[in-house]
């Protein structure tokens, strides 16, 4: 069972936006490509974190 307040997840959003935009910006020069790369990065990070979260949740349930 999660004991953490879900509002803690809000801290994730500005960080995700900043990391994705800077990552995208350092890989392209064209602004449209930067934004596309940023979106791609944000989805990738979120998916990765989600998988880690799900695995940890399963481990907790299993224990």
């Amino acid at each position, binding site marked *: 069972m999660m004991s953490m307040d879900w509002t803690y997840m809000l801290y994730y959003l500005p960080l995700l936006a*900043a990391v994705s935009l800077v990552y995208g910006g350092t890989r392209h020069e064209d602004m449209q490509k930067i934004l596309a790369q940023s979106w791609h990065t944000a989805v990738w990070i979120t998916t990765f974190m989600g998988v880690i979260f799900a695995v940890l949740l399963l481990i907790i349930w299993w224990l």
Partner: protein
Amino acid sequence: MGTPGRHIIEVEGQRVDLRQPWLAAFLAWLWPGAGHFYQGRRAKGGLFMVSILSIYVLAFVIGGRHVVYASWAPNDRRWHYLCQVGIGLPALPALVQTRHLKRFDSGGRTRTDYQPLWGGLMSPPRRPVWASRPLGPEGRTDDLSIWNEETGTGFELGSWYAVIAGLLNVLVIYDALSGPIAIPISGRTEKPKPTNSQKSAAMPA
């Protein structure tokens, strides 16, 4: 693709003049995005400045005025600062605060007449910092413990925000120095498209 004698590169059909790359890199370190403004890459400069400075400011909002400080004292090896200083000028007041604190040092203890500069912004904890928390061997706590207690997880979280801001600026410095790191959006390597002459040569007679 480079032009001999000049630091002009071509990226995605755009000619980018890196001007003096090392100066641009220094400016990029000094203030996020400043190197790109110097190179005339204003859109990217603005993007970097807003992205990095907003999470840096947010770090202070979440964790208080001490999330960035410089210290290498016993029980207070503030390695975070090595990453945070990647953001340049916005993190440099911490060095001034540390120097100021040293003036009030008396055998490893901070004198009672010590007053931090600028309302304590980026000031390190007074000495000594106890290893045990929350109460030290003299029955009282130290500044670092107080900051952690006052903000809950905010101090730790804010410290990490500032660390990430500093590390992101390292990427920006590299971009100002050398231009974008060319990685296709899909992560796969694109094959170059054959030209018309190559196509006709490959056609069977």
